[in-house]
């Protein structure tokens, strides 16, 4: 499995939340993106899990990581990003 890179993560979140390209950046989170609600976060988790071949669902902290920064840090710490 190739490591996920930052732009890929941003595009993945855009796709999960069905937003226009470029809508998500490093500062995006559930607090400032309306579509990033509890259902939107589930979509992000599913796409992320598919991308990293099932490794994401073993990382419980991702369930409460509702910002680009938090997700990035967790994936980096786990060596996935």
């Amino acid at each position: 499995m190739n490591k996920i890179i930052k732009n890929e993560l941003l595009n993945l979140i855009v796709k999960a939340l069905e937003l226009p390209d470029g809508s998500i950046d490093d500062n995006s989170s559930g607090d400032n993106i309306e579509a990033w609600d509890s259902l939107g976060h589930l979509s992000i988790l599913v796409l992320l899990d598919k991308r990293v071949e099932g490794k994401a669902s073993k990382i419980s902290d991702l369930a409460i990581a509702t910002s680009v920064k938090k997700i990035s840090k967790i994936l980096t710490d786990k060596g996935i990003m």
Partner: protein
Amino acid sequence: MNQNKFGVKIKAIEYHLPKTYEDNDMLSIDNPEWRMDDIFNKTGINRRWISDENETSVDLAYIAAKKIIDKFGVNKIDTLIYVTQSPEYFLPSSSCILQDRLSLSSNIKAFDINLGCSGYVYGLSMASAYIESGLSENVLLVCSDTYTKYISSDDRVNRPIFSDGASATLISKSESKSIGNFSFGTDGSGFDKLIVKDGAAKSNFKNSGMRPSLHMNGAEVFMFTMSTVPDNVEKVLTESLNTVNEIDYFFFHQASKIVLENLRRKLKLPKEKVYSCIEEIGNTVSSSIPIALKIASDSKLLKNHDRLLLSGFGVGLSWGSCILEWDDLL
């Protein structure tokens, strides 16, 4: 299958839903800001069944159980197991109340199991153990919940998912063993991911004057399910010397469409092997698996000797899976 002194089989399944339902259009009227298309895409649920204000889980259970009693009679039932998380009282057990309402013999064993979505598999294991040990011959396993009483009308997490409902399953001694192996798990560190906090000892038996309410962190429960259930399913397959190819149908707890689809993805299961009836029934907690089995049986999908895998998971956190060889119902 293990060789045991006594065989065990499911002889009958019945269920009952309240007469009132709400569909997604009705939810939209109450909550016009909700994106119902998006909600439906995730839940796969369009209809939920809602008990009346004065209708309890025992009322629903009575009707489901009575359907079995009417076919089988009361005299041979020697054990009543009642799975619920919405009892009529803190005490006594709902099973005792139901024993009396059904006019079951006073010489029976009756007890409650306080579990949610894993409760049916636990109940099957208890029934099997009683029969295999010779302590029982005919066990009535009743699952019944009224979770909607814990859910407010503006609760966007829980209201689109949970239904009220009851099921009754008759498990009897038989020539051959058709239930088992079982595999279970528990992780109480997640006790607060799906919880009704108010009204019991931890809140000094006080509440805010409102009804006790259900709190669920959907993402955390989803991640628990995805990280735990596939391993548990693979464990019960391995221990029972089965492979995915040897299982005709998988009956997972009917949690939501996104859960069912992703369990299928992670376990690499063919779509046609994963049964779902969630759209018109909703998530009925511990009754979701027996209701799905009954609907699949009535629709002639299930045939004698089909090999099934059942898996329940959720509040606790708690999970359990088992293998079941299907036999035509009464």
